């Protein structure tokens, strides 16, 4: 008794097929990131200096398109939303981790995924960033027992989505998120024009 989606890849293709699908998806994702220019630290960092808002536009477009398709598939019972993995919510660690990752993004010019994209096109700064990520992972693994309580117990809310949190229909949240995206896209383009004019010294 299963919906069509999510596809039971492991059941259809076995472990080897599953790994091949993962590799193909990873390659496809990396390829799209590279084509969007996300293998270049200057383009990524420009987001934070308001010169180039491509990151916001590409990522937010991906989020709203995926959200709308998932909810439509669920509405027609093609997709079992309960079987989709939703990262469990840990409020405190989520906020702190987001700040640390954001700082690392500004300083290093990459997030971990885009650093791998940069490595795939043989960028030296990307390789150093990946080494830093691996070092950070190792250091985190060594020190995490010291703040285990904070890591696993601070604001642990389990599998929680915004509609469940607010007790409203997911369709309403979809409308609000799409409206936010369209407003942000419009604002981002105006900001880009403003930043470019400022850089060139034109009024």
């Amino acid at each position, binding site marked *: 008794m299963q919906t069509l989606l999510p596809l*039971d890849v492991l059941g259809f293709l076995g472990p080897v097929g599953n790994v091949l699908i993962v590799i193909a998806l990873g390659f496809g994702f990396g390829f799209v990131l590279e084509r969007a220019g996300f293998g270049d630290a200057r383009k990524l960092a420009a987001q934070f200096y308001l010169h180039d808002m491509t990151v916001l536009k590409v990522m937010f477009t991906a989020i709203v398109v995926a959200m709308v398709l998932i*909810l439509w598939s669920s509405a027609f019972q093609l997709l079992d939303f309960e079987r989709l*993995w939703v990262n469990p919510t840990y409020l405190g660690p989520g906020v702190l981790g987001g700040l640390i990752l954001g700082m690392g993004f500004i300083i290093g010019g990459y997030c971990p995924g885009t650093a791998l994209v940069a490595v795939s096109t043989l960028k030296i700064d990307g390789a150093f960033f990946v080494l830093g990520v691996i070092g950070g992972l190792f250091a985190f693994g060594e020190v995490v027992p010291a703040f285990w309580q904070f890591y696993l117990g601070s604001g642990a809310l389990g599998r929680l989505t915004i509609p469940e949190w607010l007790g409203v*229909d*997911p*369709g309403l949240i*979809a*409308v609000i998120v799409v409206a936010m995206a*369209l407003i942000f896209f419009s604002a981002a383009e105006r900001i880009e024009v403003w930043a470019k004019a400022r850089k060139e010294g034109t009024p």
Partner: protein
Amino acid sequence: MKARAWKLFGAIMLSALALGLMLIGQPSAEDRIAHWQDELDQMLASRAYHLDPGELFTLMYDTKIKLVMLDVRDEWEYNLFHLVDAQHAPLSKLSAQSARQLPDDAVTVLITNDEQRANQAFRLLKAQGLKNLYLLGGGLNLWLDIYAEGRIDAHYDYTKPGEDVLRHQLAAAVGEMHPAARPEFAAAPQREYEKKVVIEQPGPQVQGGCG
């Protein structure tokens, strides 16, 4: 100009799809039951998910299995008699949320006096995709026939389901203090039964994100 037209087209499409979602809404628990009606009917008619009391008794003592027993009767019935470790989860309070809170890697057994309310609870929880879900065949009436009255060969005629009431008379609300609430393993009557529990492993949980 062409790029601008594409952007406008995308904005209109996304807005229309989002508004459409708000209008049609997401499937409720009832919608899911209706969607899987035929499969649920077949599952229940096959009796492949109705555990013999002898099998539930064995599961109670199996330390390798995570067993969750949900007693779906009303509070006064639960207070009257229930199995040791059975959680009170009245049918009226079960929801899609309940299925999400139950562990996928546990064997969940639904219990009522007869079978009717357990069948309804099975439809509700199974339609939400809960794995390893079973119900106590013959209900507590058959359980008490065997473990309170010692009628080792007692059976349940599912072609003539009774009302979902406790047939056995109890002098007081004894809850789980009754000896049959968890019969001693060595002293309890050993009963032959058809083994039905097949543990289905939860699917792999893949974490994602841009990272």
